[in-house]
């Protein structure tokens, strides 16, 4: 479960301060697929980042699976992320110097036998996940040798590698054409169901949001609708 209480975030641009989030309160129960929508600059990605422990809020609380993460040190947050959160980004964000298989395996290398892995099934699971996203033949390819859709599928496989209870996706189809976007989305939802994760997805795409259990809309740093 993800719980957010009175969350605010202010950014210093150097010349002035911008209030990005202005007191957000929400609860996303375990296993729910929640979409966050809103126009550019409404604070969607910032909210996602704060819920994932990628940044610290200016004030308020974020509670992930009963653990309050808002006041944590950087390395404690990293440990929480490693165990509890998987990520899928708009621009794939694979490590360019690692092969597809090594990229999928990376969370396992970083977090060891977290979430019930016995420590020896890492490479096996990486291959299974690559197979699940249809890239079993391309495990030894570097990101630069893969298409955008393929890179995003590798990113999907990586996100599920350590069986995180929560998955955060930031415009996962934003950089893909419609065919590839649709394929990635299908995979994401299918894998989410199979792995029983809580999925939080930031998107501009209403069609995509329509497939979610719940749609939260932000405007000017506030929740304007929650359906």
């Amino acid at each position, binding site marked *: 479960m993800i719980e957010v209480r009175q969350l605010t975030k202010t950014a210093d*641009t150097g010349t002035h301060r911008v209030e990005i989030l202005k007191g957000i309160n929400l609860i996303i129960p375990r296993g729910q697929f929640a979409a966050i929508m809103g126009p550019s600059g409404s604070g969607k990605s*910032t909210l996602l980042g704060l819920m994932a422990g990628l940044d610290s809020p200016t004030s308020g609380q974020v509670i992930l699976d009963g653990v309050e993460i808002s006041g944590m040190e950087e390395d404690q947050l*990293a440990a929480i*992320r*490693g165990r509890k959160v998987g990520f899928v980004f708009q621009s794939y*964000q694979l*490590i360019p*110097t*690692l092969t597809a298989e090594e990229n999928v395996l990376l969370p396992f290398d970083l977090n*060891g036998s977290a979430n019930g892995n016995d420590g020896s099934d890492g490479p096996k699971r990486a291959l299974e996940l690559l197979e699940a996203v249809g890239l079993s033949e391309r495990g030894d390819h570097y990101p630069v040798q893969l298409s955008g859709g393929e890179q995003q599928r590798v990113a999907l496989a990586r996100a599920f590698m350590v069986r995180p209870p929560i998955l955060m996706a930031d415009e996962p189809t934003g950089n893909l054409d419609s065919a590839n976007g649709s394929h990635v989305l299908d995979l994401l939802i299918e894998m989410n169901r199979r792995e029983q994760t809580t999925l939080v997805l930031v998107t501009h795409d209403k069609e995509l949001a329509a497939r979610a259990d719940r749609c939260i809309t932000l405007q000017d740093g506030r929740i304007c609708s929650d359906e």
Partner: protein
Amino acid sequence: MNKSSLPWRTAAKIAIREIAASKSKFVFIALALSVGVGSLAGVRGFGRSFRAMLLSEARTLMAADLSVRVFELPTAEQTQVMDRIVAQGARRTQISETVSMLSAGLSAGPDAPPVLVSIKAVDPAVYPFYGQLGLLPPGRLSEVLRPDTIAVSSDLLIRLDLKTGDRVRLGNQEFRIAAVVDTEPDRMAGSLNVGPRVLLSREALDNTGLIKPGSRSAQRHLFRLDPARQEVEAVRKELKAAFSDALITDFRETHPLITRGLNRSERFLSLISLIALIIGALGVAATMHSHLQQRLDSIAILKCLGARTHQIVRIYLAQTLVVGLAGGLLGCVVGIGVQAVFPLLIEKFFAIRPSTHWDALAALEAITVGLLTAILFTLPALLSVQRIRPSVILRRDHESSGDAWSKRWRAPAPWITGLIIALGIAALAAWLAGGSLADATKTAGIFAGGLLVSLLLMGGVSWGLLRGLKLFLRNPVWKLPSTLRHGIANIYRPGNQAQAVLVSLGVGVMFTLTVFLIQRGLLQQMLASAPPNMPNVFLLNITGRERDGVEELLRSRKEVQGKPEVVATIAARLRTVNGAAVENLKLEGPLRRFRQARAVSQSAEARPQTEVVQGAWWTPESARAFRENHVCVIEDTAKSLSVKPGSRLEWTVGGKPIQAVVACVYKSEEVRMGGNMDFVFSTGSLEGLPLQYFAAARMRPASVASFQRASFARFPSVTVINGADVLEIVQQVVDQIALVVRFISLFSILAGIIILASSVAATRFRRVKEVAILKTLGASRRRVMATFSVEFLVLGLTAGLLGSALATGFANLLLVSLMDAKSRFDLLPNVVAVALSAIIATVSGWLASYRILKQKPLEVLRGE
């Protein structure tokens, strides 16, 4: 597998692949490190192999198993001890060494002045016990050296235009040159090695009349022990008891005098190499910093995936280690070259050459120091990983634009990192300096402190210069041509390591120029600043019988200007200070000299150019009323021994005890022979002792030769030293030292050049794109070249200006504060240094950018 930890294997994999992806950048930083490592490995390797050779060849270098060196003829008791050792089975021979004048007589023409030579008298039947004395033409020493023959070094023949068979005069006797001394095993272990060598038999030396009681000569007693009956340690102890002032060495150790010189040189050159290494490490740090900036996204992704700071640091630490190791290994190859060049640079100092085998330990030491230095300087870049927020991946535009200055100054991390770097460098300097803990700590403190101040100064000044240049560029008043404007603006290109290039190139220029300016300043000072009445000719070894004659000669010769000074002297050994034995006084370091025999003097009245600090000098009248001996003590000595007027001192002079009460403490401003005697006795105190005299006079430089001839004709055993000759010897030594220091400091410049090239490599992609756009917009290759040239030229000029300004400052500081010379500004060397720095920067910048220019714009723009 360790829970929650990125294995080193994965870290190394990412590190190595990143290196492979940016090869040229990492090759340059490995090169920058290799320069310093090479310099250090070469210096240390040479030192170690030289020391090993000294030890393995100790018998040959001493020509004996055991050597006793003293500056007095042995007493009856000492002779008895040596005879006893011989009776137990040892063989003994005595070598006497001194300096004197040798005249070529008619063979070299009537105008040839006598030459100062270093004389060595041996017993040709037994010398040397070990090693070979090389003669040309080859022959047995006992057959070559007769009572009327000598062997000389080839430089004497060249200097006086002589050949074997010619006749020369030495002291009271004429000799035939029977052979040329080609090699001499114990030359380095000898004393009073000034001027060409003259080798003769002891009998021949007696005939010259040069050695008289009180003469300044070194005596070496060489022993070849009977290994079956004698143990070196026991013999050494026996000799030490008899010769308490002597320098005793045996074959189990390296010669202490040579070792001391070698250790000092090695320590000094190691520290200069460490500076070259630090410059390389600055390059590594700058490159790692820009590399991390380029890897911001990857680091943020790793953090998103749960990587802890230490796990990410592990990747970039592995990268530093890999590059550092590569640089270190490459440096070992450079070190072999440095080690091979060294013997050529110092051949005037050391007559022998060590075998230049590769020294694994020196190489390992240099690699370790290289790696540690690289890690130390990369620390700030590595620790900056902690500040990278994973949210960069989502919204870089909302990242804070940077902490305010006030906040940065208050943050403890940079200060702690700075402290760690300073302490680390101090520890490395202490390690390289070696010696006692106190010495090493002192050297390390001075080195680290000086370096820190220099780097801060350099960093601050280069920051100011770059900032000033930027302001100049932005000022609309200056209507600069676009090529110039664009070229200067390129210095501020993101990722350009302008400040690191300025500091490293500037440090190199500063070092090389400082050494040159000190060398030049010191010698010119010596030449130009001698006051008009300062003596420039010195007469040594004047006996009591010759004294009046020499004074009369000085008075009668018209070449002599002003009043010559004649000073009496004798070797005296201080025994007690206010009743306390000198052995029991706490005398450390240079103060230990008071336990040995030192020259003392006597005077009828206050010495010229002296100032009384405490008490009063005697006058000829007041001295007549003295019931006991009086002595005046120079200020530094009085402080060291804690004596003041009224204190009582006791000496042994020529085997006789002498007591005196301190009449005054004085100081002497003048640097002249005898001007700084520790103890000056009242007239009569040294009565009946075999006093020697020396004289000093001022004469026109052109007249010195004619005076030398006249003096030699009347007093052949009196040594006349021309100040200009001394200056020439000093200049040779200074030139030799400067050559070695310049050679090592060139490595700093090389490191600077490599950093400049690395900076070009680091910004290659930006440059490639920029060139493509410029070419697309119609810029010719020439125009692009001009723009790049301006960038490198300005960097080189600025580094040159920075280095030369600091070099002038440092050189003057050292000249004025340590060497009592005058402050000076030499325009020409500064201009040459700035110009060379600009040329070096431009040429090396060009070499690094050559490939960039060749690329076709379409290739680049398509590849976008």
